[in-house]
């Protein structure tokens, strides 16, 4: 295998193929707790071998949606199909699905080995088959030497791997992970992310992963479903979500963004000009925008897509003046906080290309900010 997992992943886009059959289909699923909509009219299609991330702030209904896939909660309305079969009222123990719990839920009275073998014993497999599959799985997650330990003798990272091994050993077609990496430190988390991608490639499992960590969702997933207040607000690849957010909420949730409020002053099919009170020049965008005339709209510009210079640009659009308020040196790049004349603070990041830069822009300098016509994303809600 010469290709890295990421390289194969790039060409993997079943959702663009109209003939591809989704492996998991969630149809207009709603879950109410009393009067409260924990999941509100969600429809999703997830394809074989995807790593689909449900991303959203805490309490937005991710776990509830995942638990409905596993069968622990019944939807108030709507249907769930897995591999074309209606699973809506099938109990968890009859679904071809395994879940890794946020709390790991490892059986404390069993050894590592017994925990991993639990699901296979339930299937009444041959003793030596169970043994060899458990051994293989323990080696895969590098727990071979801990097979005889009890869970309370393991570290957090080891427990997490026991939980992963226990759900993987059943060779499920669909693996559900609820904040699988939340309890790990940064290094272990990155390592495990890579491991999950590897496992997906070697075992051909479809993953649905719940996370509130956007960085994790970006590195791990083939596609992200962004949730807010029980609804899916946007579905797309990490770069689609980042570069083409469909709303202010999405652009502000993923990464950081500068949001400029304004209204259309020129509305053509091939370009628009947006007048914005905070900026000295209008924003020019090189594509059309569908919006009611006079309505408030927003232009979102990412910090890395703005450049800083000392000379005043002689363009008519896409610039403004600012004063440097604060600089944070991060090594690979620097973060500038710049105050516009209106008082609004804009965030800009610049790569530190040169090692010594004596004439680097510094505190309290008056500078000019500029961006390209394709940089802003215009959103209407």
């Amino acid at each position, binding site marked *: 295998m010469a290709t890295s997992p990421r390289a194969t992943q790039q060409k993997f886009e079943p959702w663009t193929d109209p003939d591809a059959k989704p492996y998991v289909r969630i149809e207009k699923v709603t879950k109410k707790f009393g009067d409260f909509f924990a999941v509100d009219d969600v429809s999703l299609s997830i394809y074989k071998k995807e790593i689909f991330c449900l991303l959203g702030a805490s309490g937005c209904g991710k776990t509830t949606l995942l638990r409905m896939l*596993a069968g622990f909660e019944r939807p108030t309305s709507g249907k769930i199909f897995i591999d074309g079969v209606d699973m809506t009222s099938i109990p*968890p123990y009859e679904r071809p699905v395994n879940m890794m719990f946020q709390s790991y839920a490892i059986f404390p009275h069993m050894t590592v080995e017994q925990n991993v073998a639990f699901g296979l014993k339930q299937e009444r497999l041959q003793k030596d088959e169970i043994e060899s599959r458990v051994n293989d799985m323990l080696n895969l997650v590098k727990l071979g030497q801990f097979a005889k*330990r009890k869970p309370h003798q393991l570290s957090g990272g080891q427990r997490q791997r026991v939980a992963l091994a226990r759900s993987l050993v059943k060779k499920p077609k669909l693996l559900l992970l609820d904040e699988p990496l939340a309890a790990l430190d940064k290094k272990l988390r990155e390592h495990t992310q890579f491991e999950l991608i590897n496992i997906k490639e070697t075992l051909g499992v479809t993953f649905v992963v719940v996370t509130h960590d956007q960085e994790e969702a970006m590195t791990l997933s083939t596609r992200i479903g962004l949730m807010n207040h029980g609804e899916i607000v946007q579905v797309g690849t990490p770069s689609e979500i980042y570069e083409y957010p469909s709303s202010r909420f999405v652009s502000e949730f993923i990464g950081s963004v500068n949001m400029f409020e304004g209204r259309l002053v020129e509305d053509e099919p091939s370009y628009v000009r947006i007048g914005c009170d905070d900026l000295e020049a209008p924003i020019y965008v090189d594509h059309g925008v569908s919006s009611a005339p006079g309505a408030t709209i927003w232009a979102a510009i990412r910090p890395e897509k703005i450049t800083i210079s000392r000379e005043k640009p002689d363009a008519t659009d896409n610039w403004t003046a600012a004063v440097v308020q604060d600089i944070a040196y991060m090594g690979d790049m620097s973060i500038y906080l710049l105050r516009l004349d209106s008082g609004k603070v804009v965030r800009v990041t610049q790569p530190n290309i040169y090692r010594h830069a004596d004439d680097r822009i510094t505190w309290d300098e008056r500078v000019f900010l500029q961006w390209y016509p394709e940089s802003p994303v215009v959103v209407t809600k």
Partner: protein
Amino acid sequence: MKALLKRAGLQGRSVVAAVPYLWLLLFFLIPFVIVLKISFSSSLIAMPPYEPLLHWTGEKVLQIKLNLGNFAFLVEDNLYWKAYLNSIWVASVSTFFCLLLGYPIAYAIARSNPSARNILMLLIVLPFWTSFLLRVYAWIGILKNNGLLNNFLIWIGAIDQPIQMLQTDFAVYVGIVYSYLPFMILPLYANLEKMDLTLLEAAADLGCKPWQGFLKVTLPLSLPGVRAGCLLVFIPAVGEFVIPSLLGDPGMLMIGKVLWTEFFNNRDWPVASAVAIVLLLFLVIPMMYFQRAQDAEAGGVHR
């Protein structure tokens, strides 16, 4: 004051740690030693009704007189053996029925709505607000030949002659199970209530039907509660005196009754003490053995 304690080498923490030891010394070890001492002496018609162990002869000789006869007597007279065995049997059967009734009750309470749990547990301990003796007396009223139960059975036509229930073993079992059931339920409830329910979801996820999840996860995890409950019922039930006296056949052999007879009817304190010491050994040795086994299992590689 603090400085004084410090100078004496006593710090707050060690004082606190010493309290339970002090308690055990005062109310367990010292009485035990006294009883042990009496069990080796001989009975006398005097006050107190036994000979001292140590005797100062006045010729610079300290005489120690150990009378092993009391223990020999227990072995020779098979009344005592029968009483011991019967007590252990009665206690075992009662413990079994307490577990059979108490587990489902504790389970149901632990799985009920959290707001209902405290009220249900209050109901379980409510009988403690009435005197134990009164509650056992109440059972006489229920079980006697023209008592509540017999009258009820006759009224619904299930029987036409009253059944002899009072002064039978059945009445003793009813009395013990009724009286000690809360001691089974309390530790079981405490155990079942703190169980992490996602473990059951994990079991279901791995292919367990609900009853399999119960057998493979809930039950093994509740064993410490089962053990605690069984000990809390079994130990006092072995030495039980009041219930067999009030509800049981007067001829029923129970070690608690034998003890009572030796002390108060025969005024033979040394034999009574020997009975108590042997009873204690019967209970303590298996318990220590169990505790060892349990510790070894829980400790694993950990130790």
